[in-house]
């Protein structure tokens, strides 16, 4: 079950895994995620779905080794299996024909869950401009796939080693200034989404973000993923993962992401 059939490295810490999960491959839509567990003592962690192949019965996951569980997953090889994989979870992206450009901006591994959304908006007949951002050239992932489904791709790196030097917001603002943008989709580190939201608020352009918070079950049971959206408590797993970025309290979310960080807490 959930056998890994393909493994490639985007960078030493970012791995692309193609995993057997025929039912999930069939049922998933852009925006969905899965919960994955590795090993008998394994933690349940959410991972977004980057792609799926219904015929092959596989889904693609992009995993960045940032902690115990993601390191374990990244260490798996072809023919190893994930102990558990369940999904697709969350609500699918609300995709349709917009009356203007759709700007899809992704930071770091956030480009992975963004890819199916880019595809879906393109398939719906939209003009799609994608803005990919990372610290440096090596951390820009899935560029070819994104180009395939985008009318235009803007690349931003912090150090200027590839594309233009600057933050993702500079790339988005350039598009906002030159054409009519109907919607922005932002997926990446919380602080990146926060600043994209602040920018697009200024331009009054509807903006959707996809949140990846701490979860346990992923089905609405535990509430660990709760966020403040427009003053209301919402669960990322069942109410999200996508929300109106202008309504999300990113500061609180960023704070809550540190709940189990060492060493200032008493976890474990």
């Amino acid at each position, binding site marked *: 079950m959930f056998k890994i059939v393909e493994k490639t490295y985007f960078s030493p810490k970012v791995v692309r895994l193609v995993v057997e999960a025929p*039912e*999930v491959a069939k*049922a998933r839509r852009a925006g969905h995620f899965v919960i994955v*567990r590795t*090993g*008998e*003592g*394994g*933690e*349940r962690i959410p991972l977004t779905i980057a792609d799926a192949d219904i015929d092959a019965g596989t889904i693609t996951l992009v995993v960045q080794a940032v902690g*115990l*569980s993601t390191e*374990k997953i990244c260490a798996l090889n072809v023919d190893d299996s994930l*102990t*558990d*994989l*369940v*999904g*697709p*979870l969350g609500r699918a992206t609300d995709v349709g024909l917009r009356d203007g450009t759709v700007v899809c901006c992704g930071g770091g591994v956030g480009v992975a869950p963004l890819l199916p959304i880019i595809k879906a908006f393109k398939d719906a007949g939209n003009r799609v401009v994608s803005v990919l951002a990372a610290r440096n050239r090596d951390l820009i992932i899935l560029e070819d796939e994104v180009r395939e489904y985008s009318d235009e791709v803007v690349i931003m790196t912090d150090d200027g080693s590839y594309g233009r030097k600057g933050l993702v917001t500079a790339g988005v603002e350039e598009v906002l200034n030159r054409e009519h943008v109907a919607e922005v989709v932002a997926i990446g580190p919380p602080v990146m989404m926060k600043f994209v939201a602040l920018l697009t608020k200024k331009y009054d352009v509807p903006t959707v973000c996809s949140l990846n918070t701490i979860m*346990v*079950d992923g*089905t*609405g*049971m*535990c*509430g*660990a993923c*709760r*966020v*403040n959206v427009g003053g209301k*408590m919402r*669960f990322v797993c*069942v109410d999200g993962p996508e929300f109106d970025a202008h309504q999300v309290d990113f500061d*609180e979310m960023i*704070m*809550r992401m*540190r*709940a*189990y960080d060492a060493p*200032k*807490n*008493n*976890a*474990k």
Partner: protein
Amino acid sequence: MTIENNSGRDSAVREKLRKALSAKERTAIPRQTMPTLDADYRRHSNEEVNCGFTADQAQIEATRCLDCPDPGCVKGCPVAIDIPGFIKAVQTDDIAGAYATLRRTSALPAVCGRVCPQERQCESKCIYNKMKKEPVAIGNLERYAADTARGRHIGENTPAAPRNGLKVAVIGSGPSGLSFAGDMAARGYDVDVYEALHQIGGVLKYGIPEFRLPNSVVDYELEGLRRAGVHFHTDTIAGKTLGYDDFLDMGYSGIFVGSGAGLPRFMGIPGENLIGVMSSNEYLTRINLMGAGRPGSDTPVLKGRSVAVIGGGNTAMDSARTAVRMGAERVVIVYRRSENEMPARAEEVRHAREEGVEFRTLCNPVEYIGDENGRVVSARLQRMELGEPDASGRRSPVPVEGAVDTVEFDQVIVSVGVSPNPLVPSSIDGLETERRGTLVVDENLRTTLPLIFAGGDIVRGGATVILAMGDGRKAAAAMAAQIESGR
């Protein structure tokens, strides 16, 4: 198996037992007390607190039962177990007979014997109450019969019922689903149980702690269901992984939804999103399902020094007693009414108190205060007093003006109830829900889609294991009748 042996009240065995002692002699016997682990030891151990009756105790307690001609206890049981029947079998050490009697109406006797609120059900209707004496310890005897049957491997060789060539699906592997599955398997159906989590058992696994219901007990019951023809599928969410159409394509003659009341409620007060404030579901799931705090588990858990648990139900007691075992120096139950109104079982409250849990009743949190890192450091607790009775018949608490205390806590576990899980209802078109999210069902537990029945907390909104199991039974009978009438 000796199923129909002594079971009739008119049988010679039962009559002989009744004549062996006078009612006066029987009622003079004191109720037996189940041995428990020492409270100090418990504070550092996850072992089951209640140790079960000894064989001698079980015989003595079973002797107390008067074998009434019109037993009230049976009416007090949501699944109408033949209580005098199994108790008299215990009295003669006919454990096979006792177990078979229990299994006729309950898929999980070892579970019910542990977690049912007998004091509000069967035992509250026992004739002894009318004599101002303590009722027969029915729950403890049920547990004894089930545990002893397990120890003696009774029932393990019972062949599965002949297959009828039909199959049904169950969504959720908690008490209602398991009860439904057991009954349908006994009728000859092939039963596929689909569970969202990676372990089977639902609330029995993620919710109720090991010290109250050991996983080995649940696993044994699951093994029995497997032998009877029930197939379990983990990591599958109905409505997500598999849609309604998928279930139809797979040829199921009926679907039972027992997806439970999974969604934790919060109170909507300031500071509830601070780090260290969490639902009891999150806290218990991390520890019970994920094994957090045990060697080899990757799942982290916050271990507070001073822990407040908000609420007065069994889940609140489970959380508080778990926090004690996780090493908290101080654990305080904060409950807005008085102890008389607490929904938790008296035994749970007593055990919690024995283990050092403090109770702050007539007290309600109004705000949590955090430090510069967003971690909770204290709670502002509003003192309450009891006013007029509310819709539930309990006197409703009203704030005492100006009486707010600030108490230091570095962890707060919110245990103020759950709502039905919307995952299944929202993913199947045509499945109607009530205003509060529970599924609409008719008197036979059939939903607004004819092939789908439902029971347990997804219908009730938050009840007990035994009521959920009763629903599973009832739905099984109704679905089987529907399928068989249509053949």
